[in-house]
C-alpha cells in the first residue's frame, strides 16, 4: 500500500508540476519591471544590434529588464492572435508593415496616439511607412525601417546587347526581348502564391495608374497584360509562380536572369554571393513612377501592463544614432527623413536608388482585410501566368473578390 500511494503521489505531483511549469514565467518582481520584446530578426548583425539597444537601455534604467524573444516571421501573426484571446502579448513587438492595420483592427495593438503626439517626432517620417501604423485615425505604432522595390540589372548583359536599363514599360518589354537568350530570361519577378507575389505586383498596378480601391480598371488590366506579355513570349520564366523573391535573387546572382524586381535587403546578398556585375535603377515607369514599401513597425500589445515603459523603450531605440546602427546591419532604409539624409544611404549609388524612392513609395495600408485582397491578386496572377484564364477574365474575378474588402476612398 505504502509504495503504491507513494507512486501515486509522485505521478500526480509530476503532473501538477508539468501543468504549473506552463504558466510560470510571467509576473513582475518587487519594484522591477520586466518588459517582453518580440521580433523576427535572424541575422547576426541585427540580433547584435537589438541586444545592444536592450542592454544600453537596461543600463540607463536599472529598474527595467527587457526579455527579447525571437519569433519566426511565419509564426508571429498566429502567436499574437492566439495570445490575445487570453489577453496575453509581448509589451513590445515588431510587426510587418503590411499586417499592421489588420492587427490594429483586431484590437491586439495598443492605441498610442497620445504618446506619439507627446513624442512629437511623427513629422520626421515619410508618409508611406507612417500610414501603415495608422488605423482609423489613431496611431498604433512607429516604423522601425523600410525597404522598397527597384530593378536590378546585369550590367554585362546590357553592355553586350548595347542597351541601357529601361526607363519605361516599352523599353522594359524591348530590353526583355533583346536580353532573352538560351538559358537566360530577360526579366523576372516573384509571383509566388504568398504576400511576396502581391508585393511585387503592386508597383506595376500603381505605375499603370490603378490602385486597390479602383481595382476594376484599365490600369489593372494593363499591369496584368505586362506580366502576360513577358510570360507568353518566354521573356520571363513561368516558374516565377513558384519563385520566392530570394529564389529570383539566386537566379539573378547566377546569371540566369538579366533583370529582376527585388528589394533593398538583397544588396548584402548580391554583394557577397553575386557572380555577376550588377546595378540598380528605379522601376520603369508606366503612366507614372511608383514602388511599394515593405518593412517593420514597432507596436505595443493592447494586453501590455507597462505601456508607458514600453513606449519609452521605443523612444530610446529611435534616437538617431542607435536606429542608424540597427538599420545598417539590417539592410533597411530609415523611414525618417532626417536619418535618410545620412551619408550611408546617400553615398552608395545602389542604396541611393532605394533611398530616393522613399519619397514616392506607397505602403500596403489597405485596411484590415488586406490578406483577402492579397490572396485575390495572387490567384489572379497565377491564373494568367499558367494560361488558365484570360487576363480580362482574371482581373474581373479578382475585382469582384476585392470590391467588398477594399477600403472605400
Amino acid at each position, binding site marked *: 500500500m505504502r509504495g503504491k500511494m507513494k507512486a501515486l503521489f509522485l505521478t500526480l505531483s509530476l503532473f501538477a508540476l508539468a501543468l504549473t511549469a506552463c504558466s510560470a514565467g510571467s509576473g513582475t518582481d518587487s519594484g522591477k519591471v520586466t518588459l517582453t520584446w518580440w521580433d523576427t530578426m535572424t541575422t547576426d548583425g541585427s540580433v547584435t544590434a537589438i541586444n545592444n539597444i536592450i542592454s544600453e537601455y537596461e543600463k540607463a534604467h536599472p529598474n527595467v529588464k527587457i526579455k527579447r524573444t525571437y519569433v519566426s516571421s511565419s509564426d508571429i501573426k498566429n502567436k499574437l492572435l492566439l495570445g*490575445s484571446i487570453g489577453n496575453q502579448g509581448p509589451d513590445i513587438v515588431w510587426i510587418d508593415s503590411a499586417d499592421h492595420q489588420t492587427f490594429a483592427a483586431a484590437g491586439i495593438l495598443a492605441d498610442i496616439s497620445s504618446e506619439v503626439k507627446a513624442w512629437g517626432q511623427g513629422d520626421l517620417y515619410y508618409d508611406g511607412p507612417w500610414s501603415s501604423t495608422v488605423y482609423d485615425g489613431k496611431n498604433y505604432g512607429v516604423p522601425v525601417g523600410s525597404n522598397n522595390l527597384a530593378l536590378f540589372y546585369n550590367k554585362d548583359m546590357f553592355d553586350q546587347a548595347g542597351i541601357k536599363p529601361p526607363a519605361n514599360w516599352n523599353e522594359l518589354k524591348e530590353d526583355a526581348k533583346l536580353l532573352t537568350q538560351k538559358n537566360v530570361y530577360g526579366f523576372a519577378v516573384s509571383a509566388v502564391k504568398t504576400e511576396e507575389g502581391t508585393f511585387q505586383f503592386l508597383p506595376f498596378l500603381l505605375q499603370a495608374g490603378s490602385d486597390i480601391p479602383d481595382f476594376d480598371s484599365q490600369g489593372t488590366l494593363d499591369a496584368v497584360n505586362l506580366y502576360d506579355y513577358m510570360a507568353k513570349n518566354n521573356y520571363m520564366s513561368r516558374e516565377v509562380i513558384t519563385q520566392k523573391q530570394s529564389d529570383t535573387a539566386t537566379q539573378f546572382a547566377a546569371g540566369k536572369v538579366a533583370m529582376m524586381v527585388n528589394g533593398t535587403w538583397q544588396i548584402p546578398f548580391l554583394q557577397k554571393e553575386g557572380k555577376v556585375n550588377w546595378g540598380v535603377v528605379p522601376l520603369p515607369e508606366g503612366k507614372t513612377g511608383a514602388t511599394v514599401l515593405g518593412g517593420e513597425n514597432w507596436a505595443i500589445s493592447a494586453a501590455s501592463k507597462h505601456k508607458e515603459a514600453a513606449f519609452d523603450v521605443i523612444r530610446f531605440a529611435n534616437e538617431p544614432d542607435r536606429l542608424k546602427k540597427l538599420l545598417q546591419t539590417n539592410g533597411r532604409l530609415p523611414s525618417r527623413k532626417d536619418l535618410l539624409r545620412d551619408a550611408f544611404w546617400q553615398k552608395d549609388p545602389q542604396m541611393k536608388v532605394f533611398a530616393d524612392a522613399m519619397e514616392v513609395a506607397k505602403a500596403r495600408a489597405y485596411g484590415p482585410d488586406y490578406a483577402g485582397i492579397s490572396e485575390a491578386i495572387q490567384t489572379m496572377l497565377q491564373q494568367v501566368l*499558367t494560361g488558365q484564364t484570360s487576363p480580362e477574365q482574371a482581373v474581373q474575378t479578382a475585382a469582384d473578390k476585392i470590391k467588398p474588402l477594399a477600403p472605400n476612398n
Partner: protein
Amino acid sequence: MSDQSYSAAAPRTSKRLRNTAWTRYLFVLPVILFLLVFIIFPIVYNLILSFQNVTVYNFKGHHAFAGLASYVKTFKDPVFYTALGNSVLFTVLSLVFQFSIGFALALFFNRSFPGRGLMRSLMLLAWMLPVVITASVFQWMLNGDYGVVNYILQSLGIIHEPHSWLSENGTALLSTIVANIWVGIPFNMIILLSGLQGLPEQLYEAAKLDGAGKMLQFRHITLPLMRPTILILLMLGIINTFKVFDMIFIMTAGGPVNSSNVLPIYAYQLSFTKFQFSQGASVSMIMFAILTVLAVIYLRMSSKEEAA
C-alpha cells in the same frame, strides 16, 4: 505488480478494498486529464468555433452563435470541392502506389541474401528525412528551368520541351503525389516486412508439400494472414495521407491557382492567412467527420476480425 496479486496478498478489510478501487481511478486520472486538456478541449473548442462567426475583427471579443453559416459558406465555395477532390485523389493514388511497391519490396527483403540488413536500413533513410528537405529537393528536381527531371527526360527523348512540373495546372498535384509516394514506400515496407516475418514457417512448408506454387501460397497463406497488418497499415495510411500539409505546402503551396490545394492547406489558408477562423474550423470539422467515419469502419472490420 497486478491488482490480483495485491488483493490476494492483503485482502483484510473492506475499507482497504474500497481504497484500492479509488486508487485505481486516481492512477488513470493523469491520462484522463491529459486527454481532456490536449485532445478533447481543442476538438470541442474547434467545434464551437465552427458554429460562430469569428474573424480577425471579433477574435478578441464576444463570439456570437452563428449556426451553420460557416458550413454554408464552405459548401458554397468552389475551392472547397477542388480541395476535397484533390485530397481524395492525393490519398488514393499515394496509398495504392506506396502500398503495392512497399509490399513488393517487403516480399523481396523477406528472403535472406547478403547485404539485406544494410539495404533495408538504407531504404528507411527516405522515410527518416525531414519532409522539409524531401519537399525542397523534389521542388528543385522538378523545376522547369534547371531541374534534373527535365534534363533526364529530354536526354532520353521522352519529352522535347522542358516542362514546368510544379507551375502547370495539370502536373502540380501529380508531382506532389510522386514525392509523397517516394516518402511513404519505406514505411509501408517495414510494417509489412515485420508482419511477414511473424508468419509461421510451417504453413508454407505444408503448402509446399501439398504442391502449392508461389502464387497460390501468396494468395492463400500470406494475404489472409497479413490481413490485420494490411488493414491497420491502410487505415494509418489514409489518416496520415489525408492530412498531409507540409509536403504540398512546401512544393506548391496549393498552387498554381488551386490546382494542388488540399483540405488541410485550404483550412490553414482560411484560418491563418485570411483570418476566417470559423470557416477554417468548419473545414477542419468536415475533415474530422470524414476521418471519423473511416475510423469507425476500420474498428468494425477489425472487431469482426477478432471475433472470427
